[in-house]
């Protein structure tokens, strides 16, 4: 099985990344801070004012290491991609299916099944583990609504209807999301999704994790030779990685939402680690951002059993495995795409 490769996050402003032999060299103010062999890396994510030498970028492209540039606050800016590789037949098949409404709807249905089931699992898990601290009744009620949404995902439904069900499921989930907090409830009150900019601390955390997750899922798709831009549930729009967003849906509750919640519930992030700006936007400060990145990396190293392949792997490898299964479905080796179901 593929080895789980690490991701390097550079948040130090003014850092310069260069190629040194087969290594990535991180230099800050003329001083060599870190030298990492490129073999162990799967991606590099640069925040804010971080520059990269062209030779390093070329070397990364050659070795299949994805490099993303984000603003200091974590908004996605750009990504460096090497020569297009992978199987052209596979990609063509992907385009063909994305053009076919029935096939897209079938894919979207599988993706939504995964998303709804995982949202539901997150709610039920909290309701079970923290019966005494949370409003378990409300959580179970919402889980029931999600079950209902999941049941209505019949084969043959057109995309519009599927999207309607997705919206409904999303509402049911985020309506009770605030109940999942067991600690620091006042400071981290959640009253609905807000983004660009996030208007409260929880939204700030969620948005940040979604960007990180998108980077990982995108790299996974590219490494199996799929085009991350051509999605099924998310239709084509310039600059939007549609398929990456599609595949992300099933990972959001597990890798991002639950992690954001546990950071708050365990007090690993504090309310004072966030700043509120004049326009109401909430931003993390540098220390919080670093703590959050470390937590994300640690989470990805936890092992779990893949529900479909029945093999143990780090959580960070799951997007790769799902991308692989997606490619197998496109190739016709599988009759449907088996979504990632978290238990």
């Amino acid at each position, binding site marked *: 099985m593929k*080895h789980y490769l*690490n*991701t*390097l*996050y*550079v*948040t*130090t402003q003014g*850092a310069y990344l260069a190629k*040194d*032999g*087969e*290594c990535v060299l*991180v230099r*800050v103010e003329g001083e060599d*801070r*870190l*030298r*990492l*062999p490129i*073999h*162990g890396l799967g991606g590099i994510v640069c925040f804010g004012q971080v520059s990269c030498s062209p030779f390093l970028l070329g070397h990364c492209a050659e070795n299949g290491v994805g490099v993303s540039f984000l603003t200091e606050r974590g908004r996605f800016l750009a990504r460096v991609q090497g020569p297009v590789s992978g199987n052209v037949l596979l990609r063509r098949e992907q385009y063909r299916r994305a053009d076919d409404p029935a096939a897209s709807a079938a894919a979207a249905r599988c993706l939504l099944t995964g998303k709804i089931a995982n949202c539901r699992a997150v709610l039920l898990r909290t309701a079970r583990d923290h019966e005494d601290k949370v409003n378990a009744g409300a959580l179970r009620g919402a889980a029931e609504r999600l079950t209902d949404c999941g049941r209505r995902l019949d084969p043959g439904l057109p995309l519009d209807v599927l999207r309607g069900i997705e919206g409904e499921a999303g509402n049911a989930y985020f309506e009770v999301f605030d109940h999942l907090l067991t600690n620091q409830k006042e400071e981290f009150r959640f009253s609905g999704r807000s983004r660009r900019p996030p208007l409260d601390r929880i939204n700030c955390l969620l948005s940040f994790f979604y960007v990180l997750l998108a980077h990982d899922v995108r790299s996974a798709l590219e490494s199996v030779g799929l085009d991350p831009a051509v999605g099924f549930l998310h239709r084509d729009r310039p600059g939007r990685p549609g398929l990456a967003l599609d595949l992300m849906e099933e990972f959001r509750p597990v890798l991002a939402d639950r992690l954001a919640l546990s950071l708050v519930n365990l007090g690993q992030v504090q309310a004072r680690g966030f700043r509120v700006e004049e326009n109401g936007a909430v931003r993390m400060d540098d220390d919080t951002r*670093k703590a959050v*990145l*470390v937590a*994300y*990396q*640690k989470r990805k*190293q936890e092992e779990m059993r893949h529900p479909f392949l029945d093999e143990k792997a780090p959580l960070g490898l799951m997007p790769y495995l799902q991308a692989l299964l997606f490619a197998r479905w496109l190739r016709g080796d599988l009759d449907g795409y088996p979504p990632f179901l978290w238990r």
Partner: protein
Amino acid sequence: MFVLVSYDVKTEDGDGRRRLRRIAKACRDYGQRVQYSVFECIVDPAQWTKLRARLLREMNSEEDSLRFYFLGSNWQRRVEHVGAKPALDLEGPLVI
């Protein structure tokens, strides 16, 4: 897998110093320097074959010595560090 590479290169002449430099460079491409002539490399079998071949090509077996210690993939339990210059865990979170 985790391989510890340590070397001793005779550096009395210019040729020896050249070998030392080139061996160190090969190790640096694949691993992390933890002490002056000790490197920790996390490599897969293919990468190890490459690194090993490169090291053997650079060395002079009459005068230098190379030692490889194979610590497998469960190496975390087998390494203990005391004192200055702790090594970075290349498989842990990398945030700088």
